[in-house]
């Protein structure tokens, strides 16, 4: 089944919601997003690798999030592989607001009243 252009899957909306709520101006890495998503939803498990990175990739292709590699020195200092840091874009914030409006109970009524 083809997706409606511009529509977001639930996991994509959830990811955008997490990115909006995070205070990291520099962006946050995939594992950090998975942790934040788990905390927010009270899920028992972290989002699977495939689900998480596929959704992030789709959001990036749609320009709803942007990403960059962190400074190599930070990774060396932390003795770990480099992180890919994700940040929500202006388009992403608008898409998230739209998605929330569409899925909120009584959204149609509010739209009509407005």
């Amino acid at each position, binding site marked *: 089944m083809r997706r409606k252009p511009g529509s977001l899957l639930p996991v994509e909306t959830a990811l955008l919601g997490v990115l909006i709520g995070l205070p990291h101006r520099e962006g946050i*890495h*995939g*594992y*950090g997003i*998975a942790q934040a998503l788990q905390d927010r939803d009270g899920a028992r*498990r*972290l*989002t*699977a*690798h*495939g*689900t*998480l*990175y*596929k959704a992030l*990739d789709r959001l990036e*292709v749609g*320009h709803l999030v942007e990403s960059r590699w962190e400074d190599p020195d930070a990774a060396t200092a932390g003795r*770990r*592989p*480099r*992180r*890919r840091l994700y940040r929500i874009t202006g388009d992403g914030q608008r898409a998230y607001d739209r998605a929330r409006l569409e899925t909120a109970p009584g959204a149609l009524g509010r739209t009509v009243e407005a």
Partner: protein
Amino acid sequence: MSAVTRLATTWTWLYTSPLSQMTRDRRRAEIRNDLAEQSRDGRIDARRVLLGVPADLGWMAGRVVSDRVAVRLVCAFMLASTVGAIWVNHNHRGSSSPDAHVWTFAIALPVLLALAPFRRRRHVERIVSAVAYAAFVMPPLVGAWPLITHPDVAALPWLSVAALAGVVVGGRLPGSLWPGTR
């Protein structure tokens, strides 16, 4: 390295293998980091790998298809340009100026292919193709290329050079989709 980390690393290596180098390296590095962070937290879980397998495969299939579609479109552009140039040259021979339908065909081809459904940011091949067309196809079309002695075949070697130049130059430009270079 734990068995789960090894499983995740091997699986990532497997499903990213058919992809272009840049896509492949990025995904592998991301998973490597994810596993390191997870391992540091002591939360390594095989289900996180296994439950993501369908999504991994879907993502991989989408990437492979989009890479191939873009390359196929450029190849189609080159092929269509070659056929068009030969056909136009053939019809042009002996007359002072090509007929209107010949010009229509010659102009419609690149326009149609320029409007081909490349995805965003995939303009490099389009530009390279357009430049190659302008440089190698249009001069023979209008008879301005001094080296042409036999219009039926003249476009073919030039188009081969153009295609080769497209691969070499296009593959080295940022954003290119040529296999193995992205």
